[in-house]
Structure formats: C-alpha cells, structure tokens
C-alpha cells in the first residue's frame, strides 16, 4: 500500500517538473497593478504566442520587484517608480530603461471631505491641508510604486507624516482602498484599481490631473552581470515586445470594454522630459 502510494507520489513529482529548457523561460518581475488590472492576462499570452517563450510573472510591490531583478532573480522588470528605476540603472544592475505607458494617480477620500481639498489643483497642497487638519490618511506603506510616489509628495510638501491620523496598511492597493473606505480616510490610488473597486467603496475623486500624479511605467532589462543564469535574450525580447507598435495598440484598447475608458496610455519612444 505504502509502496504504491510512494510510486504515485514520485510519478506526480516527475510530471510536474518543468520540461522546457531554461532559455525559453522568461521571469518578469512586475508590480501588482499590472496584474490586478488584468493587463498582463492580455499581453503575456500575446508574447508567448509570438515568441514561443513562456513567461513567469512575479507580481509584487515595485520596491521588491526591482530588488529581485537587481539580484538577477528575474530577466526583465515592468515597474512604476522612475526615481528608484534610475537609481538601479545608474548602479548598473538594470539596463536599457524604456517608457511603456502611463496612467494617473488620484487623491480620493470621504464624501464630506473634512480637510476641504476637493478641486485643489496641486496634490502637494492637498496633502499639506490633510496633515494640517490631522485628517485620517491611509498609506500603502509597502515600498510599492504608489507608496514611493506618496512619499515623494510628502517630501515636496516638507512634511514628515506621523501621528494617529497617518495609517499604514502595508497591503496592496485593493486592500488599502478597503481600509480607507472603512476608516473614512483619504488615500492615493491609481485610477485603474479605483475604477475596479467602484462597486465596493464610496470614496470620490478629490484631486486629480496634477503633473506629479502621473504614473509612469517603464520596462528594463536585467544586466547579466547582476547574477548567474539571467536569460538575457528572453528579457530583451519581452522588453522589445512591450514597446512594439502591436503591443502599444493593445495597451491603448485595454479596459475600454469593461470601464468605458482606457486604463493606460501607451508612450513608447517618449522620454521622461517629454512628460514634464
């Protein structure tokens, strides 16, 4: 009996072992927003069909995604934290950074808007007002691209957010929206996730369309010197794919059927300076 069970166990292990040669596996290190929005469910199969390679998507916060890639634990990164990205490129861990697309962040909060920030043109001023009035604010607190952008805004405002009004959820965008909704608090969200949660939360947009709220995604290849066994060709193929006209068109169309508006704007070929 036991011997038979063991045989079955060993057979199933063997069956589940990867059969492909390593060069056809590309590890993509990316953020939760690209996965949670469903964009990768569209793009990854396109890439796999085109190249015959198979993509392993690891979706974590941008901070972790870049840290993993910089250790050579991935082949290519698709993330949204320009300042951090430039740091890794300068250090030589990542290379060939190219802009892919953008969407935007919005400041949302309770309908009664205790800090009276509705319609303010500048995000920094809105955050200052939230801090002054000690209105509750939920931060991601997870080194994600969204969190890094938020920290950048606080820095510009010259405020070190601290106190009982400043809540760190330590979770993804979806859960953080849930916390903000329950606690009647302000938060910063990417528009895509906010749209996806419309049915569950009641947090209207209060501040939007300010330049610093742009959410820019780039693709970068991992420098083969960053670690052993990096699939250089696979990483480059995926990065090239992300900025190809066909993919850019798919990005432009993504989300229109579900939300009535596109979630991302493709910007391949542009530079950071073009967006200032």
């Amino acid at each position, binding site marked *: 009996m036991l011997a038979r069970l063991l045989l079955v166990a060993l057979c*199933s292990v063997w069956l589940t072992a*990867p059969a492909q040669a390593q060069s056809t596996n590309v590890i993509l290190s990316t953020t939760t927003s690209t996965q949670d929005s469903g964009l990768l469910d569209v793009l990854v199969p396109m890439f796999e069909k085109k190249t015959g390679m198979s993509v392993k998507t690891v979706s974590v916060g941008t901070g972790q995604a870049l840290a993993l890639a910089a250790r*050579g634990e991935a082949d290519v990164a698709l993330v949204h934290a320009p300042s951090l990205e430039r740091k890794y490129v300068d250090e030589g861990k990542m290379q060939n950074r190219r802009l892919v697309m953008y969407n935007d962040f919005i400041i949302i909060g309770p309908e009664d808007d205790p800090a009276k920030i509705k319609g303010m043109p500048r995000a920094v001023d809105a955050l200052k007002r939230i801090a002054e009035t000690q209105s509750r604010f939920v931060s991601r607190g997870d080194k994600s691209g969204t969190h890094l952008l938020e920290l950048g805004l606080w820095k510009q405002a010259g405020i070190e957010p601290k106190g009982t009004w400043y809540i760190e959820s330590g979770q993804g965008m979806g859960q953080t929206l849930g916390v903000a909704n329950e606690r009647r608090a302000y938060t910063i969200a990417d528009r895509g996730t906010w749209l996806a949660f419309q049915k569950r939360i009641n947090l209207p947009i209060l501040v939007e369309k300010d330049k610093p709220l742009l959410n820019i995604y780039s693709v970068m290849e991992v420098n083969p010197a960053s670690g052993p066994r990096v699939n250089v060709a696979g990483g480059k193929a995926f990065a090239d794919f992300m900025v190809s006209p066909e993919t850019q068109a798919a990005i432009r169309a993504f989300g229109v059927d579900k939300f009535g508006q596109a979630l991302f704007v493709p910007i391949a070929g542009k530079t950071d300076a073009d967006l200032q």
Partner: protein
Amino acid sequence: MELIGQGVFEAVRLLLAGDREVWSVTWLSLRISATATLLALACGIPLGTALALSRFTGRGFLISLVNTGMGLPPVVVGLFVTIVLWRSGVLGFLELLYTPTAMILAQLVIAAPIVIGLTLAAMQQIPDKFRLQLLALGASRRQMVWTLLKEARLPMLAAVMAGFGAVISEVGASLMVGGNIKGSTRVLTTATVLETSKGNFDVAIALSLILLVLMFLVNWALTWIQQRRAG
C-alpha cells in the same frame, strides 16, 4: 450576507459551467498538496517511528524541535525555500523557483514535522508492555516495528488529515515559491488572495467554498477508512 449568497451562487455556477480555469486550479491544489502529504508520510513515518522507539541523549530536545515544527509558519518556510531556490541560491541551478515542484518542496517542509510528531504520538500511545511481549514471543525487530505500525495505523490517519489540511490551506509559502502564475502555479488559496485584491469578492468567496468542499471530501474519505477499520 448578500455578498456571501452571491459567492455561493458564483461557486455553483463556476463548477457547473465547467469553468476550465477553476477546475485546473482546483486540480492543481489537490495534486500539489496530495503529493507533498505523501512525501511527508514517506519520510515522516520512519522518522517518527525511529524517534518513538529509540532512546538517546538529546532525544527530548529533538522531540521539542519536532513539536515546534508542527506549527512552522508557512511564510517562514516560504522565505527560506525561496532563498535556497533563487538563481543565486544553493539549489538555483535546478531552476525550480516558481514551479509546482517548488511548491511541493515547501509544503513537504511544512507537513513533515506534523507527520513525524503525530506518528511519534501514535506509536507512544501503544503500551510499552505490548512491545516487550512481541519481543518475548520471538519477533524480530523488523516484525516488531511492523506490528506496532499496524497497531498505530488508525491514529496515524489523523497525521494524514492534519498534514494534508495544513498544506492545502496554506497560502504564504505557495505564494512566495510558486509566484501565483496563471495556468502553472495558481492554486485555490493564492487565487483567492488575488481575486480579493482585485476586488472580485464573489469569485474569492466561490474559490474559498470550493477549497472547503475539497477539504471536506478528502477528510470524509479518510475518516471513512479510519472508522471502517476501527469498527
């Protein structure tokens, strides 16, 4: 409450509609966790038996370690297995990270101490006199161990249930070493986390219910074997 009702409805709909993704995720959960449990039994039963029947210095300490291991936090296991399987890790050359095999490995680490601990307890509840009697009747050491194992087989089914229950319901390790990759390493628990973070609460509830039903069916079958033999 309305949401849970929606979830139940969604679960029934997904299963009846033969949603391919839901079925493949369910099947993968079962396959990975069953394999991990069987492997845990293969190494846990001999080790637990050896620990129950032998006497040596440091035995108490070792048993304490096993008992601690019975409550090993899955995220801790996940973290260490990930680091070992990284390309830069000790076993990096195997290219196992983000594969079902890596998940089986992590789940094996979680389940093995449970099987060892419960085997130890099952063997120890057999009166010592019985063992001595067997030896007095001229049984060889091998025959003695075999008879004791047969004697302990019913409580040891509890080890199977506890081990399987621990690994099929854990999410921390599976998420870290598997990466929750669609069509490859996405299992019921990691899919539930993902659907929750996407805001698809009805699908998340549906997946949870499928997991509960799956666990119930497996335990039902095991309990049936256990009680039939007991009766």
